[in-house]
């Protein structure tokens, strides 16, 4: 990677004022500029190994990702995702795990046929001072309908940034406490 395009700070890409542009510069892939990039880090007071193991078993993700209708594991690296979209619709795609470092990193990319192209990574790092694990999720995606699509999604609270924030909170709750916090009665409570 040419050094003159490197970001000149230590912040994660998602904290950049223009995240997708920073990603494009960092990777040298100019085409990334037209995508949306979001990210979020939480500290979870559990060991890295435990969190990685839970996440790597992809069918577990439905227990805290509110927006996922279903995840079907096809083989060791491929999975089929059905995700809720605005106005009661769903979107589906296949994802392939293209990089995996045990207890450190899971990275995936949607296949070429995906209607919403997306890629992402979840990183697990030891938190300082025995505080557990810092989990960083970063997602880059092609907003349906471009900016307008992202706005509409936001109005329905299906905007990926909001979803990721809430999903990571629920992941933390589930891993630390064994349950997902809710004030709803049983019928309306989040599934776990």
């Amino acid at each position, binding site marked *: 990677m040419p050094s003159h395009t490197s970001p000149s700070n230590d912040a994660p890409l998602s904290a950049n004022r223009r995240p997708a542009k920073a990603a494009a510069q960092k990777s040298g892939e100019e085409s990334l500029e037209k995508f949306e990039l979001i990210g979020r880090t939480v500290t979870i007071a559990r060991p890295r190994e435990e969190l990685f193991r839970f996440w790597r078993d992809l069918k577990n993700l439905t227990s805290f990702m509110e927006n996922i209708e279903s995840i079907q594991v096809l083989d060791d690296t491929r999975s089929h995702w059905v995700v809720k979209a605005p106005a009661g619709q769903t979107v589906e795609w296949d994802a392939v795990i293209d990089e995996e470092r045990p207890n450190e990193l899971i990275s995936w990319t949607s296949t070429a046929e995906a209607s919403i192209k997306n890629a992402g990574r979840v990183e697990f790092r030891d938190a300082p001072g025995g505080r557990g694990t810092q989990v960083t999720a970063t997602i880059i995606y092609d907003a349906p309908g471009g900016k307008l699509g992202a706005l509409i999604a936001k109005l329905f609270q299906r905007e990926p940034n909001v979803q990721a924030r809430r999903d990571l909170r629920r992941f933390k709750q589930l891993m630390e*406490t*064994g349950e997902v916090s809710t004030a709803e009665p049983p019928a309306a409570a989040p599934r776990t």
Partner: protein
Amino acid sequence: MRALTWQGKHDVRVETVPDPQIVNPRDAIIEITSTAICGSDLHLYDHYIPRMKAGDILGHEFMGRVVEVGPGNKRLQVGQRVVVPFVIACGQCFFCQKQQYAACDNSNPADKADMSELAYGYPMTGAFGYSHLTGGYAGGQAEYVRVPYSDVGPIVIPEGIDDDKVLFLSDILPTGWMAAENCMIEPGDTVAVWGCGPVGLFAIQSALVQGAERVIAIDHHPHRLELAQSLGAEILNYEEVKVREALVEMTGGIGPDACIDAVGMESHGMSIDNVLDHVKAAVGLGTDRPHVLRQVILACRKGGRVSIPGVYGGMADKFPIGALMEKGLTIKTGQTHVQKYTQDLLDLIMEGKLDTTFLISHRLPLEEAANGYKIFKEQQNDVTKVVLKPKVVH
């Protein structure tokens, strides 16, 4: 069951609502025997706190008997008497492990945490009956309540002790105690307390137990000052004396070593988009209440300590940052880490070192809760604390 529900500004009603149910494994259901109206409930009554919904069940100071426990709760048993802290804390996150329970990162449901994260930079903790900013959890001014993470918060009370002696472990007693603890009291200290409501009165009592040489209490309601005096405080009626001058003179020109703001400000702008509205709504109080915090900071001695248990939610105008910095003051504040204090305070109650019953002026059946709110708001001199008894049928 019957429960006190919020319907709108100055409109609360006891209605029949669905019984609570166990939702998560660590939940418990409590049958309420005593439940108090808190001064901070009046902020809801006055609709100063945003994110209320019609039908929300109020109440965060309550106790009762365990009638059901979830399968993941290894601590509570059906039949036990418990007092429940108003703060809901998971016991396992970074903050709970540091005993900063009022900063618990997990108890506010994920979808409710966005608003306070926007307003304060980080999301607030879950609490009972206190708007959807703190989770939208049903409160305890009801016959029954669901208690999440009930293997962490509730403290078991031995049989044979009156509810009235221990009920306030749920909020105001630990709040007054932590307010005094935040003063880091040293021998010979004079502590000044602004506001002789329930929290101020408990702060006075706590400061004396924690070793303060003198406590000076400031209010304008004669009966509340009388209660402060009966606890051992010297009193100042701010309608009659110039408070800062009095404090300087009474402390030989040094000033109080620590100052407690137990008044707070009703201009609660709990979220960015509400701040302006609330500032506007509070204009009538605007010259009065921020005046308390300003006066606290000016009156405190050089190198002294300021403790703020009084509730603030938004922004403060004309904050004396110069006095704060130049005098080298220490400020400690925050919602109460109730779970940290309940056992020690229960012990002090059992030993007779703390009394809380003097505060209660009214005991009413739950059905009369709406009137309880009305008199607590309108007759502050005489109505010092209202306790509702759901099991008492009138």
